């Protein structure tokens, strides 16, 4: 069916003698259960498809790029979409650009066959397991939750005979558990995408959430400290490192003179290495090919604190006279943007437990309200939602409210420890990390 859709669109493109074109088509199926307390509130099934046509108009030193999105298969409407794309490409003035041709595309597994075969049955089983685990908690009760299965089929064809397809399955969980004692309420509320069924680990995860909800009942406002030692959990690091290190590592930021990273610069502590791994097993952004059809790959970004390589899509690779590193992402509008795939940091040499025991006084942050650093400057400040105060190598008491602030670009130069343990969080595989010289306000 999908190849028929592509054939139909390509036929219209060819009938109009378009020389440089690309079709990117996505079919999505979503199956969701929404919970109100521990009861099902909504069962949803969604099927959706859309495609993007990009056409190029080569000019002397520039290329005009037109992008149009649609979801009609009526030939007249397809023709209208193509004409609109041509109009845009005539008016657009981008740097020299051409579509990729065939290249060696790595083969990786991105879909779970069991999910593809019977998504409704898998969703039913997992949703029951999730709510069953939550209902069995003595210490906390469910307020609401969402569980989804996603199936994405992506197809890319271009005028250079590139003809690619990929299937991906993944999960989404949003869940809130509430604890109550002596008229006080607290909760642990989390959400995120999980690439593999094995990453869901409801048994372990729900008990952990319930314990954190209960602990937060006795949370204290943290003590203010102007030069604090702070442990960030892997999920906190996703929000801290990904946007800032990501921005300064991409080719676009270099071209636009907003990157603070030069190749060979010392930008982080010796103990930090960071890899952009487009093929990471279990990484949410893993795929054989990127959004314009270049092979995804493994690129060393930081090695022992030194900046090693920039991350390129086709456009910025051409501008810098290098090869794409497979770092093109597709924006909702259909335009291609330069971005990261999966970031991973190799494990350190001590356990989380040892890490805590090495800290005389400090803070452990499991979750902020919303950590949203300024990508360019790296400045951040965020309210603590769930965490612990550490005294003499042990968790002293839970903490909530108060604010941790600093600068991500400076923080990564002050990394004291990296844990052996690592966790997947969407497109990151990060350990726990300890940083010094941060500010805690209360």
């Amino acid at each position, binding site marked *: 069916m999908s190849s028929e859709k592509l054939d139909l669109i390509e036929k219209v493109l060819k009938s109009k003698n378009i020389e440089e074109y690309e079709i990117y088509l996505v079919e999505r199926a979503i199956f969701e259960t929404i919970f109100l307390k521990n009861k099902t509130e909504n069962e949803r099934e969604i099927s959706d498809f859309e495609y993007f046509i990009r056409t190029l108009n080569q000019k002397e030193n520039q290329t005009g790029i037109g992008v149009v999105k*649609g979801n*009609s298969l009526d030939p007249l409407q397809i023709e209208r979409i193509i004409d609109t794309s041509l109009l845009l490409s005539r008016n657009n003035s981008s740097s020299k650009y051409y579509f990729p041709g065939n290249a060696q595309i790595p083969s990786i597994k991105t879909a779970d066959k069991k999910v593809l075969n019977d998504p409704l049955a898998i969703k039913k089983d997992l949703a029951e397991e999730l709510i069953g685990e939550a209902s069995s908690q003595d210490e906390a009760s469910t*307020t609401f939750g969402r569980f989804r299965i996603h199936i994405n089929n992506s197809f890319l064809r271009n005028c250079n005979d590139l003809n690619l397809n990929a299937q991906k399955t993944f999960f989404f969980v949003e869940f809130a558990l509430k604890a109550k004692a002596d008229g006080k309420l607290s909760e642990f509320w989390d959400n995120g995408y999980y690439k593999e069924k094995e990453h869901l680990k409801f048994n372990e995860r729900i008990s952990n959430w319930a314990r954190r909800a209960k602990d937060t009942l006795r949370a204290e406002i943290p003590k203010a400290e102007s030069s604090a030692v702070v442990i960030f959990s892997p999920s906190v690091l996703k929000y801290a490192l990904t946007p800032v290190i990501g921005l300064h590592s991409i080719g*676009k930021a270099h071209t636009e003179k907003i990157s603070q990273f030069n190749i060979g610069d010392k930008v982080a502590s010796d103990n930090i290495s960071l890899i952009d791994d487009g093929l990471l097993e279990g990484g949410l952004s893993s795929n054989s090919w990127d959004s314009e059809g270049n092979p995804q790959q493994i690129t060393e970004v930081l090695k022992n604190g030194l900046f090693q390589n920039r991350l390129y899509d086709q456009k910025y690779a051409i501008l810098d006279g290098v090869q794409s590193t497979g770092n093109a992402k597709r924006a909702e509008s*259909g335009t291609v943007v330069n971005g990261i795939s999966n970031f991973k940091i190799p494990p350190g040499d001590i356990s989380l437990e040892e890490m805590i025991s090495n800290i005389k006084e400090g803070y452990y942050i499991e979750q902020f309200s919303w950590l949203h650093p300024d990508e360019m400057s790296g400045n951040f400040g965020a309210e603590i939602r769930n965490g612990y105060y550490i005294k003499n190598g042990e968790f002293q008491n839970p903490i909530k409210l108060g604010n941790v602030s600093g600068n991500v670009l400076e923080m990564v130069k002050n990394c004291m420890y990296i844990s052996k343990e690592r966790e997947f969080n969407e497109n990151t595989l990060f350990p726990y990390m300890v940083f010094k010289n941060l500010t805690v306000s209360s």
Partner: protein
Amino acid sequence: MSTKSYDEILSEFEEITNHYNRKDQYFDILYDSVSTTTIAKTPSSEDFSINLKKSGVVARTFLGSWKEVATDLSSDINVIKQRIPKLTNKGAAIAEFKGWKLNKEIKPKIDPSNISIDDKIKKVRDIFNYIKKSDERIINVQVKYMELLIERIFVNNEGCRLRQVIPRTRVGIFPIAKEGSVVDYDYFIKTGEIGFEIFDLIDNGVLDTTVKNSLEMLEAKLPPSGRKTIILDPQMAGLIAHESFGHGLEADQVLRGRSYLKQHLHKQVASEISTIYDTPSLDKKLGSYFFDDEGIKAGNNVLVENGILKNYIYDRRSASELKATPQGNGRRESFAHPINVRMSNTYFGSGDYDLNEMISEVSDGVMLVHGYFGMEDPLGGGMQCTSKKAYLIENGEKTKILKATALSGDVLELLKNIDAVSKDALRLDGGTCGKGSEDMVPVTSGGSYLRAKNALVSQG
């Protein structure tokens, strides 16, 4: 892209809807289509894209819980009848609201569809070039124009036959400044239920101010940390009204047992000079509409009056459960997203203070300006709202400029500590709001200037 007319869609929807008897079950069906044009320019790229009317349909029934099916229009929508079960005696499971009819299109002063793509591109390039040449310290400029035309058609088995067509436009301008090793920026965003006339609101004076604001950030210092008297500009006031306060009033959170405000209904939650509204029926604001995605007419909800909590914010389900009158706050991002209780235009009412008078009475404080982002804490009542910049107030005067500043602590404590509200005209700024991390809908928030004592500020 649907090429069917309204009458054809209506006729198809009526046929499907008639399949489900209201006495036996509630049923509704929504057609959603969106057309967009996006023109973005940075020093190294020009991204132009058009979405030619992407459309889909979502239908649902209530059988004690919702059963919902959504599909793009490439499949036969009669699949809905196969997938939504026909029931008996489930009609009373959810309250009935009177059906009504409407077919309304907002006509902008300048319809973007009558403007050529060349002219739209020229506007963006002109702004880009003007800012780029304005000062050598401006090292990078990002300009983005976006226009949307949203059509929603809603039919249910209570007699609703509704259609609305709403244009929305947005222009964002980001001049990035650098001096020595310091790189920083401020930005300007204009949004509304308006058309191409949005560019009439962005003259050279606005661009000059935007550049000046970015350059000023090069001098900004880190804010102090600790308890201060604060003054919030209308954007920051709006962030408090929406993120920290309003999310706790969404009645789905009440049903979930997850609202810190449940115990405060009809009680004092703010100082007596505070009034807070949520009003989807406001004229031409980004969060305005005629009916929500459940066919409920947009109303005006007084949430807090003279400091007393008067009402929650409802969708059809929570209004039914709590026996309340919904004001049109059941919203979807698109046909592929679920209904949630959502705010619309949420704002503080004006007061009687003069802004200069408010500042002059502060000996040691911080004025937080240009609301940047915020996060809700509906169960805990915690607050995290961050401004892009701030000013130190010393001995009754605005002095040094400060970098991004976070406001945290307990939201009710802050609201009760409001001791002055300015008499300035209400200002509402647009943005998008998620329920948790997703399901984004357009909203506005704002008010006038607020002053509060003993608020916790720190670096944002």
